[in-house]
């Protein structure tokens, strides 16, 4: 089902080393977005799915593609359009006249890494087909359950919501994405490099996989081992409680989001090479975790990002 990686079984230290190599490789391709790349890796390591919200052309697809390449997993891209049907994502059963039976043709979702491009262009029906697969780790077609490969990682991109002809994802669906990041325009010196350096696509083609799907599963386990102290849990809970007091947001973070936050922090700390979580990890991860889950209370003239950073600056670390 999957290709055998070059490094079948390795020690934890070795895995961490190669993870860092993979991180560097992605940073070479998507230049100047270290923090976002790190978050994307954290999301992957925390077994979550990633949402990239931004304008077209800032490197969303490149990031997804680079990730798939360095991890060395199968990569499928689904371009969401308004006429996309669930079967286009999940696959169909076709009647084989010679064998006199239906045969299941798996859709593009049967891959370790799926890029759902411009997810908000599809109808809610198509969207929910993908999102259910994300939540369950399996798809059921015509009464038959098909297990999705492990690891399974979805990167969805979404254009800014005020563009015409889009179906914004409802809040309940957005909750299925662990993190959301936005890439934004590059810094001037990075942009100069982009303009002068090699074409990103050819660079991608030359990039070698550094880790494999088996390693990813191992890395998931490694991340779970990261220590979380009582003091940090105090801070985490204070943060969750603060989101719920109606001062900053319409509604607070759900317990599921809280668990996701904890896993994400662990993965982030692991990426930093630490075996315990510190408050800075929480502060690094928190905006990405909460941005797509929160709305500004009615009548406030601020953006969600401003509210989040405002809250983080106000909340004392216990």
């Amino acid at each position, binding site marked *: 089902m999957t290709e055998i990686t070059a490094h079948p079984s390795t020690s934890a230290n070795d895995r961490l080393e190669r993870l860092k190599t993979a991180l560097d490789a992605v940073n070479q391709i998507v230049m100047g977005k270290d923090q976002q790349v790190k978050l994307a890796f954290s999301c992957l390591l925390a077994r979550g799915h990633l949402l990239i919200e931004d304008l077209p052309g800032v490197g969303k697809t490149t990031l997804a593609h680079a990730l798939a390449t360095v991890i060395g997993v199968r990569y499928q891209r689904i371009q969401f359009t308004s006429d996309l049907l669930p079967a286009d994502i999940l696959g169909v059963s076709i009647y084989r006249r010679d064998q006199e039976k239906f045969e299941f043709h798996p859709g593009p979702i049967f891959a370790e890494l799926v890029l759902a491009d411009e997810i908000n262009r599809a109808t809610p029906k198509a969207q929910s087909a993908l999102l259910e697969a994300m939540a369950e780790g399996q798809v059921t077609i015509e009464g038959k359950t098909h297990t999705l490969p492990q690891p399974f990682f979805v990167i969805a991109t979404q254009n800014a919501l005020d563009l015409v002809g889009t179906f914004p994802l409802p809040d309940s669906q957005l909750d299925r994405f662990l993190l959301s990041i936005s890439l934004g325009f590059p810094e001037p010196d990075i942009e100069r490099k982009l303009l002068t350096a090699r074409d990103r696509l050819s660079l991608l083609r030359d990039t070698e996989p550094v880790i494999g799907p088996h390693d990813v599963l191992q890395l998931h386990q490694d991340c779970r081992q990261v*220590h979380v102290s009582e003091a940090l849990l105090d801070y985490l809970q204070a943060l969750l409680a603060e989101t719920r007091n109606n001062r900053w947001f319409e509604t607070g973070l759900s317990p599921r989001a809280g668990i996701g936050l904890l896993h994400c922090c662990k993965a982030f700390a692991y990426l930093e090479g630490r075996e315990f*979580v510190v408050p*800075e990890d929480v502060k690094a991860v928190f905006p990405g975790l909460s941005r797509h889950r929160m709305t500004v209370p009615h009548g406030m003239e601020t953006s969600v990002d401003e509210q989040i950073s405002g809250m983080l600056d106000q909340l004392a670390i216990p």
Partner: protein
Amino acid sequence: MNTRHAAILWVIAALGISMLPQLIGMPVLVVAIALLPIVWRLLAQFRNWKPMSIWLRVLATAFAVTALFLTYGQLLGRRIAVSMLLLMLSLKLLETFRIRDARIVASLSLFLCATQFLFHQGIPMIVYFIACLLSTLTALMYLQRQEAFANLRNIPETGRSLFSELGFGLRLMLLALPVGLALFLLFPRWVSPLWGVPEDALDARSGLSDSMTPGSIQSLYMDDSPAFRAAFEGPVPSRGELYWRGPVFWDFDGRRWRGNYLGRTIDATTKPDPGKAPFRYSVQMEPTEQSWLFALDYPALEPRGASLSMDYQLITRQPITQLRNYVMASDPDFVDTPQLGLTMRGAALELPVGFNPRTAKMVAGWRRETNSDAAIIRRALAHFNQEQFHYTLNPPLLNRNTIDEFLFDTRRGFCEHYASAFTVMMRMAGIPARIVTGYQGGWYSEMGSYVLVRQSDAHAWSEVWIRGTGWRRVDPTAAVAPERVERGAMSLAIPRRHILDFEWLRDVRNTLDLLQRGWNSWVIAFDSDRQSRLFTVFGWGIFDSAKLVIAMGVTLLVAGAAIFMIMPLLLRFRSSRKQDPLVRLWQKFITKLANAGLDPQPSMGPAEIAAMASAQLSYAADVIYRITELYTFCRYSPRNSGQVELKELIQDFNPSRTDEYARREP
């Protein structure tokens, strides 16, 4: 403490503490009745007894009231009313099995505590009051908690120590302090307190009384309680001049000296001119239940409600039942009664018939030798001086002819013996004489610049009338024991009065009297008069009740607002108290950074702090990184070693000393 018992135990403790001063002065029977319900309630708590039946309770109450009546012999008066309240509260424990009842007991024990101020108003009452308030607050807090968890079988443990519970009570008291202060200062006061009932206003106090027998002043010598304090405007007179004039006695029945009816009721016809009086002073006098104000010879002013009698006693119309302040001037050179009237002369020479024949014989012999009154006086004083007289605290008992026995047999006595014998001798010689009692000397407080006069300074001396000079003071005690006048009553060569009577202890007590004086003049003496003049320092004039009420309202509003402002600080104080030592260390580090001009925010994590601090204090960057690294490690990693090093680093960390870091750099 076991949470199940905690609430009721605290209620009982609160009641017990508020009962304490009352119990000490009560008859034994009443004390026993008051303690029995407490014992029963404690047993009931630990042995799970059921509440007592209503008939038993009624019976117990009837018994207690009867016993109270039989003990005191009446049912009116303050002392008995307070005793009744105490008994009823104690009996209430018999039916205190619900939170509602317990709350009543706790609240009313606070009321019982307040009633104690009717009897004592000294500084120790502050300690008592705080103890009462604290225990009651704690009891109420436990009751509140019990009520909050009434549905649960067990009250959850709070995990708070006894000290933090008491600390909470203290914080509540602190919060209420501004309001209490505002009420104390601004709540309109009555001109005379409601409880100014003279007949049993205060517990029996010792002090000079309206008669003198051998031994009456001697008993005062044992009493160290303050009589009054005098602060002089000018120089303080020497100790030998400090004769504080009190009751004057004329009538002698062979044993007891009494005041003369005429002397007490006729006002002085000539009074010293206050303008010429060299001594001016203000007196703060403790209540005596008597009508005498004390002043140096001769008082020139008549304070409010007092008048100068013919024999120059300062007598008030009402007994002095509260602390009294008055301003006084004295003129020692005033000539008292240059012409002695016939009635007075008769009173000053009268002696009981058939007493003291030996003395009469001796004085008659002196009279035959000389015609001069002054010579007789000298002769009498010389008699005390030359014969073997002793000044003693334990004089032998005297029988019918007190003067004879004293002069010829025992020759041991206290000032009243000498004054009495001298006066009788003078009268026998035909020289008008009378006895003056009062206080002699006093302890000068350098710190407070005032003279403290204690009951133990009580003294008795004589006055004789000599044509041309009027009444003259003669102190026969000075002839026997001059140190009594020169160095004070305590300097007498008399063994210790009681087991704790040391000189250093007396000095400490005298020095501490400054506190008592301050308490008296700032708290006890704060009456309606002082209250209305409270704002005159701001030039706002006299405040009447209406204005005071307005001022009180405004102050309470401001105080309320202030409390709301302080509240977060107090809460923060509380949360910081609960932190572990590691966090306290870190806070110390943060404070040091803030003192160095940095602006560390509470929302910053250790790494952010490190980045900021090392950027601004680059010379100490290494130390800063090491500190934050260690702290991060101790606080967030599974292994928390290195706290000792962290402590040392933070204690040595001194960002303002750049030179030290510069030196350490190479």
